[in-house]
């Protein structure tokens, strides 16, 4: 080693020996440089003042995305056509269709529905929870489809779901004491302490004023969109004050009709998705 030539570099007594590199390594290096130049010519590479060189191959990542999206749409065309031409029960019975519809429905739900119903479809006061087994307008596939498609109290749609409860307090139908008694009766129906008034008197008023729509036992009536009152789920709050407020001057939720906006195929997918959340009938 000691006779071997050095490059002349020396640091702290350590000398750099000159072991010539085989020339093919050098050529490999030049080749990679050439490749790099070719790459810069073939692909977008050099930034200019307002853009960049386009490259001879005409490649762009945006174009690649468009191609990918077009390919995906192409791949999905057939299954979407099958969803469009099948009825809801058929879609639900076909594992492939159901899986596709539920996944597509979930995506559409996040875009169009989650603003009111929440990303997990749990709703909030005035916006129904879609995971539970309580349905104001019915929880079968057809009923859910109709609700989504025509909306609820959407004045622009002739087929919309519509119901209106009288404002028993503000319209002067019941006195404040009567409302307290009715509320006591409703609390008793749900197995709770009737703390607001006389449940017996309230029961009489209920039979007279409320049972027509909500049913004698508080079981509700879906054809009229009258919610069940004997269960544990209260759209506008379950505490006595909330119940009394709703009897006195009821709130009425509105949902737009989605059929015309999204098209029936998307509404079908939304229906399958909502139905799959755990409460579908």
């Amino acid at each position, binding site marked *: 080693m000691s006779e071997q030539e050095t*490059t*002349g*570099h020396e640091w702290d007594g350590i000398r750099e020996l000159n072991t010539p590199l*085989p020339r093919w390594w050098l050529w490999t290096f030049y080749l990679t440089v050439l490749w790099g130049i070719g790459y810069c010519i073939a692909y977008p590479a050099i930034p200019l003042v307002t853009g960049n060189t386009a490259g001879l191959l005409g490649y762009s990542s945006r174009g690649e995305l468009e191609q990918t999206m077009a390919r995906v749409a192409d791949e999905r065309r057939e299954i979407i056509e099958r969803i469009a031409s099948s009825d809801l029960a058929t879609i639900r019975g076909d594992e492939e269709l159901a899986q596709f519809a539920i996944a597509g429905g979930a995506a559409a739900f996040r875009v169009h529905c989650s603003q009111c119903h929440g990303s997990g479809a749990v709703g909030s006061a005035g916006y129904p*929870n879609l*995971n*539970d*087994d309580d349905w104001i307008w019915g929880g079968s596939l057809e009923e859910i489809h109709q609700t989504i498609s025509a909306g609820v109290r959407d004045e622009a749609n002739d087929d919309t779901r519509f119901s209106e409860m009288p404002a028993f307090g503000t319209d002067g139908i019941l006195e404040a004491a009567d409302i307290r008694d009715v509320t006591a009766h409703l609390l008793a129906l749900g197995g709770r302490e009737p703390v607001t008034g006389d449940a017996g008197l309230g029961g009489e008023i209920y039979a007279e004023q409320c049972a027509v729509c909500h049913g004698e036992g508080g079981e509700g009536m879906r054809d009229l969109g009258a919610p069940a009152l004997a269960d544990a789920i209260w759209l506008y709050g379950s505490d006595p004050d909330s119940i009394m407020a709703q009897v006195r001057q009821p709130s009425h939720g509105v949902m737009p009709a989605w059929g015309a906006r999204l098209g029936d195929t998307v509404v079908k997918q939304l229906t399958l998705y909502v139905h799959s959340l755990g409460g579908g009938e």
Partner: protein
Amino acid sequence: MTQAGEPELHDVSAVEHHRKGPLYAPRTRIHPKRVRGAFRRLKWWIMAVTLAIYYVTPWLRWDRGPHVSDQAVLIDLANRRFFFFFIEIWPHEFYYVAGLLIMAGIGLFLVTSTVGRAWCGYACPQTVWVDLFLVIERYFEGDRNARVRLDAAPWSANKLRRRGAKHAVWLLIAVATGGAWIFYFADAPRLAVDLVRGEAPGIAYATIAVLTATTYVLGGLLREQVCIYMCPWPRIQGAMLDENSLTVSYNDWRGEPRGRHLRRSQEDDGPRGDCVDCNACVAVCPMGIDIRDGQQFECITCALCIDACNGVMERIGRPGGLISYATLSDYNANMALACGPDGEIDPGRTRAPDGGLADGVRRFSWRIVLRPRTLGYAGVWCAIGIVMLGLLATRDRLELHVVHDRNPLFVRLTDGSIRNGYTIKVLNMQTEPREVTLTIEGLPGARLRLAGATGEPSPSLTFSAAPDALKTAKVYVHLPRADLPGSHAGFHFLAEAHDDGEVAAREAVFESPGRDSG
């Protein structure tokens, strides 16, 4: 303060001295000569065994029943499974592979600290394939001298024919090398048929093409350049040697001073070493080095120079081992023995009167292999192996994974009960289909319902789990209002297989608003 006319002296030298030699040099072709001997025979055997393992393994069959592949060794990338005879590894059991890699690393330390770069010299695919390619080259172009002549000769029909035949066979071997590789990743017999019909996946053909190119270029064209300029092993392995590691060494304590005309020189000018300077060791070296220059990182310790030199020693009637596997400590002891008071090597000091080696010469002893360092490596290696075997023998073949719904955490139902949703994953890692019953432990009153199913919730659910597959199911746990715990209760899902009673448990949490709310 210098006077006019007197130059100032600087204590400095130019960083860039004049370079005498070039920074790049054309490659000098190496034409290793054929050699016969014990190590060459050993290398033939290792070559045969390693090549046989490589080509035959994918074709071995191993019966695993009708539901999974019967290929003994299969890396099923599409289905994320690794089969190795009686072992099947799922992706989440990949730590076995990590363990094997650690064992391979420690095994390399062990081998290197005892016998030096034995991996490089005997078992490395680069070495094995270069050896194979050299056999072909020798067949078509002759041994070293003929090849040197052919190299220098102008192009002729003869040269073209020999060269063409050699490269054609090299390419065939390269194709076979790439072709064998892909059979590890798919059912070999079926893939072979598809391959011939042109119906195999494009990636198979692409893999063959890439491996053909690398085998041909690395094994046929680049050869020793791979080891010297591309491979990181020589640097790493060099750092793992110590003074008790065996390396291929030229024993200059008995070889020097070397001389070409042994007998005459001995009479003429005093003592001569055993080296007759015949350069046989240089002629056979596939790395193109002279082992007599001492340890060099280019040396892959293939030991062919030992065979060559032993042949020469035998012919001139000297004991073999002028070039031998020796440890640095033995070498140093022998060197001390050979050097006279003036520091010059006197080969007479290491010779016995009968012409053999003196008694004081240290020879290789197997005891040197058993030293704390190697025993430590072997111990760690065995310990990892035993732990892995233990884990393998007792590992689960049924696993349960549970993911609680994040949104919503819980749902209140009309009867006041609370429902939680869970995604259940049952891993049936046996190769037979199994019936599995899912139950709940530690949550009194809880009932189960499969998502999408009609009917009342029940205390247990039964699934059929496909063989060697993951079963995913969405299940709901219902808890009546009266049984509600606090806002948050831990419990266990249990999955029990009907066939052998194997039970998998998984902790889960039931979320609720609490008994008194709403």
